[in-house]
């Protein structure tokens, strides 16, 4: 495998982690977040600062996850107080706040960010395997959660949280778990990204990044683990494979968000389900 393929696969793995992490919060638990890149950023900055200070890659990655989950819990607690519309705006606000604060911090490199971040020490192939292993792990965990009673309870909260309470679901605790879990994974993705790119700037964690992650979730089908995985791979590959798309990457993401919501709000997963049902109907029809 050439260096380009290695690098591309690593990027895909990181994006899959990000998309699946947002899917836990927005897809499974129904809590819309427009500021997911902030948690990604907290993970990246935390891990980068730590390895620069001479701490090992693994503990730095864990610390990045913990830092992101801490902020995630704070936002989660905030989310308990506001209704759905406000939550979208609040999470977006957290994203802007993160960016606005980081940009002004000299010790975080300000606008220029952090450069010369050390290598993971695993080698390029080793690093790729780590990223893909983590992505596969989160994919498996997502599938498991969906099958477990936690996924069942999440479904009810995403549907109608007032009614979920009347059947004994402690909505607040479940939401906090979703936020902590999803943001911790985003934090891991951030730590990985920092040691993949080896330079991070505030804009890598801005609103457009939050929207790109959201696009992967939305296009794949909100809540569908397989759909989100496929969309994350496709949306990362498309601009890379077709260079001309790269210039129009944002247009592509924006257009996909628009068209998906307008014509197939259940995303690729919804289209697949439609196709499946239509196919079965066609089979049943007598020849």
């Amino acid at each position, binding site marked *: 495998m050439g260096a380009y393929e290695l690098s591309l696969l690593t990027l895909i793995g990181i994006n899959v982690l990000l998309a699946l992490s947002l899917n836990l919060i927005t897809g499974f638990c129904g809590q819309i977040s427009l500021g997911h890149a902030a948690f990604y950023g907290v993970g990246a900055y935390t891990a980068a600062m730590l390895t620069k200070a001479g701490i090992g890659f693994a503990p730095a990655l864990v610390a990045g996850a913990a830092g992101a989950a801490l902020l995630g819990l704070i936002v989660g607690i905030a989310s308990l107080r506001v209704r759905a519309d406000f939550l979208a705006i609040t999470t977006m*606000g957290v994203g802007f706040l993160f960016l606005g604060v980081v940009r002004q911090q000299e010790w975080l490199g300000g606008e220029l960010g952090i450069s010369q971040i050390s290598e993971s020490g695993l080698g390029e192939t080793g690093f790729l395997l780590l990223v893909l292993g983590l992505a596969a792990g989160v994919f498996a965990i997502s599938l498991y959660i969906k099958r477990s009673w936690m996924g069942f309870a999440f479904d009810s909260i995403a549907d109608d949280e007032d009614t979920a309470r009347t059947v004994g679901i402690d909505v607040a605790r479940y939401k906090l778990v979703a936020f902590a879990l999803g943001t911790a994974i985003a934090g891991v993705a951030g730590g990985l990204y920092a040691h993949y790119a080896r330079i991070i700037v505030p804009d890598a964690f801005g609103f457009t990044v939050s929207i790109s992650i959201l696009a992967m979730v939305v296009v794949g089908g909100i809540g569908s683990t397989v759909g989100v995985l496929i969309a994350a791979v496709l949306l990362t590959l498309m601009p890379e494979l077709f260079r001309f798309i790269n210039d129009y990457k944002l247009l592509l993401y*924006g257009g996909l968000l628009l068209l998906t919501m307008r014509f197939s709000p259940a995303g690729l997963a919804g289209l697949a389900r439609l196709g499946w049902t239509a196919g079965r109907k066609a089979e049943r029809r007598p020849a």
Partner: protein
Amino acid sequence: MLYLDLTLQGLIQGSMYALIAVGLTLVYGLLRILHVAHAGLFTLGAYIAVTVTNAAGSLLLAALVAVPLVGLAGMAIYRLLYEPILHRPPFVALIASIGLFICMEEGFRLVFGPYGNSFDLSPVEGSVQLGALSLQTVEAATIVAAFGLLGALAVFAGRTRIGVAWRATVTDPEMAQSFGIDTVKVRYLNFFIGSALAAVAGVLVALLNNFVEPTMGSVPSYKMLAIIVLGGLGNVKGTLVASLALGVMESFGTIYAGHIMDRDAIAFLFLVAVLMVRPQGLFGKA
């Protein structure tokens, strides 16, 4: 003197926010949609102003073209995008709106180029003297336009038949319908007026900066959301107060808190802080 100057600058910025945010809060009041693409219409207004002025040499003509055209564009967005998905959960329209906004920005970039445009000749110059304070003519015009138009809007909503129907629909659509009000027409009117006001703001910003660029709507689009939440979604008076308050707060904040966070983060810090204390916004809900 510094305080007075900062306050005045804040009021200018705040009037601009008010012109844009009113349309947004009206859309929310009527349809419960967070209409992010509204800021794309603001940018569209600015671009039309610059393009027409440079081509025809008349700023007045440009404004007369830009304002109704953008109003119509707003109606088209309602008809083609929102109306078919009104029955879906609210996040569907929100995400669609974000998608549309990104497409609009990219569209401006492709059509007008990424580096921005200016007026060939600055169409408005000179300044106004207010006691010891000196204001650019455009700055004065901004304040006058904002207060004038929003005042006219208040009179229209309060005194005319259509205006009363409009307010009734925002307050209680079902009740309004049972009184024979055509609520669909009201929605079109709502989008037209809101979008036209955003276009006015676009024209004014183009004049203030003598510069338009594809991403000029980004910051306003998200900041407007903060403002309408603070103002109490759907609450026009609250939105005006929140706009002006934020404008002033930002102009002071940039001086006194600029080393901690940048100007655009102040709005969100304020937003998050307020929501924690008062989850329903500063002025309650519609």
